[in-house]
């Protein structure tokens, strides 16, 4: 499950920026923000392309870990609460693999050039 805000929430802000700011203000700050906006569009494209498959894989893992199915937000809430109160932990079979796989899936959308992500990818591939 991707973090917030979603691409759907972000794209209107990109449109607003293109329409209201880029056309009137050409300062260095606007150029910087334009780069950020381009990155947001790239992120939205990755989210559209990758998230359906990644979410389905996450749902299946969560079902195995928690013993029941449910929507991702609810399942993640349950998992987070159990990790916080200690009733589930890294000693739970499959937990470490699930947490890594889920965080890696987020990074594949959010920031695939992040150095620690690249390093972890290499380690996973041996």
């Amino acid at each position, binding site marked *: 499950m991707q973090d917030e805000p979603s691409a759907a929430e*972000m794209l209107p802000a990109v449109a607003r920026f293109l329409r209201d700011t880029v056309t009137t203000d050409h300062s260095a700050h606007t150029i910087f923000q334009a780069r950020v906006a381009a990155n947001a569009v790239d992120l939205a494209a990755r989210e559209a392309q990758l998230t359906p498959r990644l979410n389905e894989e996450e749902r299946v893992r969560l079902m195995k870990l928690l013993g029941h199915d449910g929507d991702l937000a609810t399942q993640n809430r349950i998992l987070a609460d159990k990790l916080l109160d200690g009733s589930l932990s890294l000693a739970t079979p499959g937990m470490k*693999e699930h947490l*890594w796989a889920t965080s890696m899936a*987020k990074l594949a959308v959010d920031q695939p050039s992040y150095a620690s992500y690249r390093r972890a990818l290499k380690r*996973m591939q041996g």
Partner: protein
Amino acid sequence: MTLEAPHPPLADALAHLGKRLYPSLGAVSGLQRLSGGASQETWAFSFEGPGGPVPLILRRAPSARVSDLAAGLEAEAELLKLAHANGARVPNVRYVLTPADNCGRGFIMDRLEGETIPRKILRDAAFAGARTHLARDCGEALARIHRIEPSRLPDTLRAAPGSVRLAELNRTYANVGHPNPVFALALRWLAENMPKDPKELRLVHGDFRHGNLMIGPDGIRGVLDWELAHLGDPMEDLGWICVPSWRFGEIEKPVGGFGTHEELFAAYEAAGGGAVDPARVRFWEVFGALQWGLMCSGMAEIFRSGADGSVERAMIGRRASEVEIDLLDYIAPLTQGAAHAG
């Protein structure tokens, strides 16, 4: 509370103040807002002098907010003076505002020349020499800050050792509201691995990292932004500068992307900071990583509320996942070639 007269424009108030303080100096020039949230502002300006402009910084809280901030900025000025007297490199405080100055509450300090942008500091050739000793500079600066005799510190400084800081972090996680299993696991790890609060609390800067260190080709020129200073575990500052989020791609150099733990610790001890406990620093690194992760998560709400609807704000929200990888590296490290699900 009585209604106050509206402020005269800041430039006029500063010019008036300048004439009184420095009769030899002339007009105010280059007044420019640099940064700051709703309650505190940072302004750059100069007084024109016979030898050219004198570059200064005004840190202030507009007076309407005074009651929220009680001694905040006065304490900050006091800390800068104490740190300076103890040999730490900090901007020289020139003047603490009084109500008669009509500028709000705050103080005026020297404006230091240098760079705070991490990518420039870590990559530009101009800083190649500085990079060889920045980790040691950090150790030395922190030792000088932590050595300040606690009895001399302003009594408004809050006491927040690990137990208090962790309770705050738990509240922040609950307030953010978005379920995050890795953050929850990290909170549990912190609770299980929290070192005992130190017997004697020391001055902790609270935000010692890129952005708040003015750096020149010669090294650290000033430690800025003392807003989050508190009494606490000095290892908190050593941990915060080593959080992976401040490495900007240089992930094998834990201290700000420019140096090693060993350099930081050795310089800290040599400058009289006391014995470093690496396990304690590691606790604070995990704490710091999670603290930054929760700050990122909190951006979603700021974006949605419209308080800052910029794309930049939204994109910081999506950096929380970077912190998840960093936290897992600390508390659930991968073994080489480990198979993974998914």
